[in-house]
């Protein structure tokens, strides 16, 4: 079997299917993300948007269709899967920082043990990215000593330290207080402006409008609509999209 697809798109998904027991989580998803493109995925809870991006870095295994990331197909081949984590960074809803390590160690561990970088170099990189997410002074603290917004920014820095080519965001601001959402979104906007390939599951429509190249609306495991933000927000003809937008933007 030929496991390499044309190396053009960053992520190429074809006819993706995913079941949890009898629950059909993803139905025949087709999606292609170019390098440097910013995608925002939204949709009601349980619509499969998290499952979709978790399939992209193999936190979930798909049962049908094909996914190719940076030209490498994700299948049962162990060698292919190992490489993915290094090239795809992910930011989680609940931050998932390692509580037994300092902020700096959180950022250094993966480069040191996965990419085998010297500690000094990893530390320089880590401090640079902590600077970038605007919390260089917290490097020696433990995650539990930080606010939610600060923790999420550390999580972004941690993912960036692996110098990934693609960043996945799984509802990064949904558990944060409003004043903290802004500081996280600011970091994400900066990142976008630097040309990172980003796939974000989020309900922050302001962010989508400002940054996204395309907005994807999912419902019941399917991609219902896919459009540039302007068209998506102003002239959607789909009933389900309009209803969702009115709920999200309504208040």
């Amino acid at each position, binding site marked *: 079997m030929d496991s390499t697809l044309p190396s053009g798109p960053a992520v190429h998904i074809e006819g993706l299917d995913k079941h949890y027991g009898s629950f059909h989580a993803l139905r025949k998803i087709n999606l292609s993300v170019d390098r440097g493109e910013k995608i925002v995925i939204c949709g009601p809870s349980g619509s499969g948007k998290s499952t979709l991006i978790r399939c992209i*870095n*193999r*936190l979930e295994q798909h049962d049908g269709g094909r996914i190719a990331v940076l030209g490498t197909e994700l299948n049962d081949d162990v060698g292919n899967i*190992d*490489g*993915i*984590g*290094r090239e*795809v*960074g*992910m930011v*989680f809803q*609940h931050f*998932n*920082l*390692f*509580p*037994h390590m300092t902020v700096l160690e959180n950022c250094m*561990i*993966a480069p040191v*043990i*996965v*990419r085998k970088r010297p500690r000094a170099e990893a530390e320089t990189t880590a401090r640079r990215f902590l600077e970038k997410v605007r919390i260089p002074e917290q490097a020696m603290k433990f995650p539990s000593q930080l606010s939610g917004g600060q923790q999420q920014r550390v*999580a972004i820095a*941690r*993912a960036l330290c*692996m110098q990934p080519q693609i960043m*996945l965001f799984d509802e990064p601001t949904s558990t944060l207080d409003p004043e903290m959402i802004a500081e996280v979104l600011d970091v994400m906007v900066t990142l976008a402006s630097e040309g990172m390939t980003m796939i974000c599951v989020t309900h922050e429509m302001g962010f989508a409008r400002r940054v996204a190249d395309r907005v994807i609306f999912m419902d019941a495991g399917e991609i219902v609509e896919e459009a540039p933000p302007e068209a998506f927000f102003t002239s959607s003809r789909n009933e389900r999209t309009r209803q969702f937008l009115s709920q999200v933007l309504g208040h």
Partner: protein
Amino acid sequence: MEIVVVAPPAPGRLEDLKRRFFATPLQTLLSLISLTIMALIVWKLLDWAVFSAVFTTTGGPEACQAAAGACWSVIAARWRIILFGLYPFEEQWRSALACVSVVVMTVLSCMPAFWTGRRIALVWGAGTGLYYVLMKGGVLGLPYVGEEAWGGLALTLFIFVTTCLIGFPLAICLALLRRSDLPWISRTTGLIIDGVRSLPLISILFTFAVVLPFALPQWLQGDKLYRVILGSALFFSAYQAEIVRGGMQGVPAGQEEAAMALGMSYWQRIGRILLPQAMRNALPATINQFVISFKETSLVVIVGFFEILASGNAAYGTGEWRFAYVEVYAFIAFIYFVFVFSLSRYGAYLERRMAVGER
């Protein structure tokens, strides 16, 4: 009905006493009963153990037996056999040093500074290695002393330490295998763990000491001591595995996902992310298991080892000290008490500290 006094007018010593112990008739009765029991026991015990006791060996066993109280002379006369068993007399300082090295090792591993996998392994490796070299000799000009001559407290400590040293890594392996995603591996391991847990320790020790030689080829049998240690380690690991697994269940699934998303391999995730957190969760239960395991080390007396209980039996069992069994058992009980009590107090302290930390 009890009458609750709101803000009592600054009670004096007497009122305070009255409020605490004699507030109601029932309280008074309880206090009096407790006080009587305590006074009786404390008086009898002090009288037996101190006031009427004989401490010196000068009178010999006869003078001692005639005394109304305890005959501590038996300890003075026989403490070496209780602590060191049949270890060659002029080499017993090595046995003593070996015990000290084990105690130091235990104390060190109770310090948070040593709570990383590498450091704890280093401390235990060094402690046990030192013990082994001291006891066995054959190097550095120390005369060779075979395992069959080891005994007393030194042997008890050796069995305990090696049980933990083998059992702990084994427990982690079993716990990992039991939580494996592969159904056959987790089920088979579950069967082994539950099977071992349902058996009494004595039956396992007996099987390893007496039955196993039939079932192993000659070259694999090894010394009986090490077979029994293996059996006791297996038993320890079956219990400890469930404790470790409990600790792992306390680590949120997101931790492993984050590690996976960072590209860490299975062993990196286990070693760097899962285990450090799981072991911290499991610490109080682990110390409790150590305490239980230390007490259960005493069971090897049944399969014929000359550990502290057997050497105690020997200390009073032969010859002129036959009457002084209570004193010998009290002495051994005291040794066990010192070890077990301090370890369990430490465990309770950790548990309290961790409970506060969670708030």
